[in-house]
């Protein structure tokens, strides 16, 4: 794979040059706070590459917490009264700088939901396609990173267009796709790294992987019956602590559930798509008041069954988790997907 060497002294300069073609998005740490998120990088703003996993995942880049899908007017004097219209959006090229490999890999999982043989969600897909992902390898994984267990990893390129590997004085940019190459050209970074760079990156990758201390196993879940896991007796204890907030689902890079809402101000209205959460009781409530997932146990079970069993059975491609550790870090009551996955994996129904 082609590797370009970017001198750190030319980092800011290259980013600036690329702005002629791309809007830049990157991790930003809030001043004096222990929180960070992906934001548009305004003029002179640089991505904060020390941030490991942002507090909230970068999924909002293609799946904003709330976005306008359609517009309408209820003004009867207008010809287009009560007609829905697609909302025009800007899908000009944008580069996501410093996204971590597990977060980029998450988009590939979520794509299975939004880009299907039957339907294509134009909002998610168009935004996704507008992005070039300039990822940053994780040299020092934190203790909650179990991404290698989920088929990604600290140097995984599967969701990326370019993988940057940080060394003392440079970034080694591994070109993964043509899209990535185009970005590097736009930034004016052209110096190919010399011989031995592949080994250098390979060694760093190995070093990073050995630093991973956290893992999960789900090898035995596939062969279990949905209903056996569903009816297992451990869900009561597993869900006890849950307070049914939406934190785990909101910070998660792979949680994709959403709500559709109309908002009218005066006579102008918008139909929006907004994050929703399977943790919320009203997520599934029928108009009659009947609620198929009315209890906390049912909702907690849904979240983990969806991620670790339903997804696996539906797509036959691993689990709906990239091992970023956010839900573990953010859960107010310390519900840990690693323990629950282990419980599910080891569960044997009573004969």
């Amino acid at each position, binding site marked *: 794979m082609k590797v370009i060497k970017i001198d750190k002294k030319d980092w800011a300069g290259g980013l600036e040059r690329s702005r002629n073609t791309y809007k830049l998005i990157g991790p930003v740490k809030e001043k004096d706070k222990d929180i960070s998120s992906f934001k548009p990088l305004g003029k002179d703003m640089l991505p904060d590459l020390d941030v490991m996993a942002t507090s909230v995942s970068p999924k909002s880049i293609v799946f904003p917490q709330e976005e306008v899908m*359609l517009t309408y007017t209820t003004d009867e004097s207008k010809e287009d009264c009560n007609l829905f*219209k*697609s909302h025009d959006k800007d899908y000009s090229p944008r580069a996501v700088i410093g996204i971590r490999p597990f977060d980029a890999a998450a988009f590939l999982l979520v794509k299975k939901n939004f880009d299907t043989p039957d339907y294509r969600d134009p909002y998610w897909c168009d935004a996704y396609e507008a992005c070039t992902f300039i990822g940053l390898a994780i040299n020092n994984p934190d203790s909650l990173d179990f991404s290698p267990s989920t088929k990604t990893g600290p140097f995984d390129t599967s969701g990326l267009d370019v993988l940057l590997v940080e060394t003392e004085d440079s970034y080694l940019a591994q070109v993964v796709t043509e899209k990535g190459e185009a970005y590097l050209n736009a930034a004016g970074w052209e110096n190919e790294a010399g011989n031995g760079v592949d080994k250098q990156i390979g060694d760093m990758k190995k070093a990073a992987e050995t630093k991973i201390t956290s893992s999960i196993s789900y090898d035995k879940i596939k062969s279990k019956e*949905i209903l056996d896991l*569903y009816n297992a007796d451990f869900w009561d204890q597993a869900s006890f602590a849950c307070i049914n907030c939406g934190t785990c689902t909101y910070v998660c890079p792979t949680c994709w559930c959403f709500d559709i809402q109309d908002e009218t101000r005066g006579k102008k209205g918008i139909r929006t798509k907004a994050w929703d959460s399977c943790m919320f009781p009203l997520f599934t409530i029928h108009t009659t008041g009947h609620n198929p*997932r009315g209890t906390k146990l049912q909702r907690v079970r849904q979240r983990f*069954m969806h991620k670790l069993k339903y997804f696996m059975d539906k797509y036959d491609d691993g689990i709906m988790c990239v091992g970023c550790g956010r839900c573990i870090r953010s859960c107010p009551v310390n519900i840990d997907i690693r323990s629950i996955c282990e419980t599910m994996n080891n569960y044997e129904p009573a004969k």
Partner: protein
Amino acid sequence: MENPYLPYPVRIDDIQIATEDKSLKTFKFVFLNEEDEENFSYNAGQFAEVSIPGKGEIPIGIASSPVEKGFVMFTVFRAGAVTSHLHNMKVGDVMGIRGPLGNWYPWEMLEGKNILIVGGGFAFTTLRSSIIYMLDPANRSKFGNIDVVYGARTPGMLLYKDELVEWEKRDDINMHLTIDSPAEGWDYNVGFTPPVTELKAPKGDADTFAIVCGPPIMIKFTLPVLEKLGYSHDHIIMSLENRMKCGIGMCGRCNIGKELVCKDGPVFTLAELNKTPKEY
């Protein structure tokens, strides 16, 4: 590919009060753009999102039949914000419908088979669509015997009364209408749907399929009856309702296990449902 969230614009062409308590109304919609009707080509058993600007969307089974051209029809129970608003709308009003959505009763598989339809209350909409479809001269010969058990609380709560009367007169469909308790002028069955099914429905066999739609309580007591009559679980076809938003399998709320009711359903056989969590 077009935007699956964008409803087709439609005009309300006709509104009929469907039940004596006025809780249900039947709406006929015509497409503002002719080509949209072609795009909205559907099968009996599918549903659509009825879409009102500023109020939202609600999934409703399509009550008209693919063999009826020039309009689509929905019979709507007044329940939530969207349906309450819809009930107050007038002929000529413009709104949207989005679809057709979901799967349908397995018509290809049902060819050459006897069909038993069991319906209760206002869940008769897609069953009407199915009956009209099967009775269409072009289709009737494709099916064996057709039996229909349809129950409601009172005669006035039966949907599509004019058509029920028509069907009663025909000899290529066996109607078994029933109401909960005796009423003046009612010459048909009296009693809940399950016992009437037990009494009147044909026995189950390899060539006979049952399609069942109704309130949960009716389903609960009808399934054992069908089992008793010899219907195997893969010959019992049901249509589920769950809370839905997108209708295209993306928003994540309507799943039962790995199946999405809006896209993989709403039609499932009982054999399929036996394998999923009962989250409906």
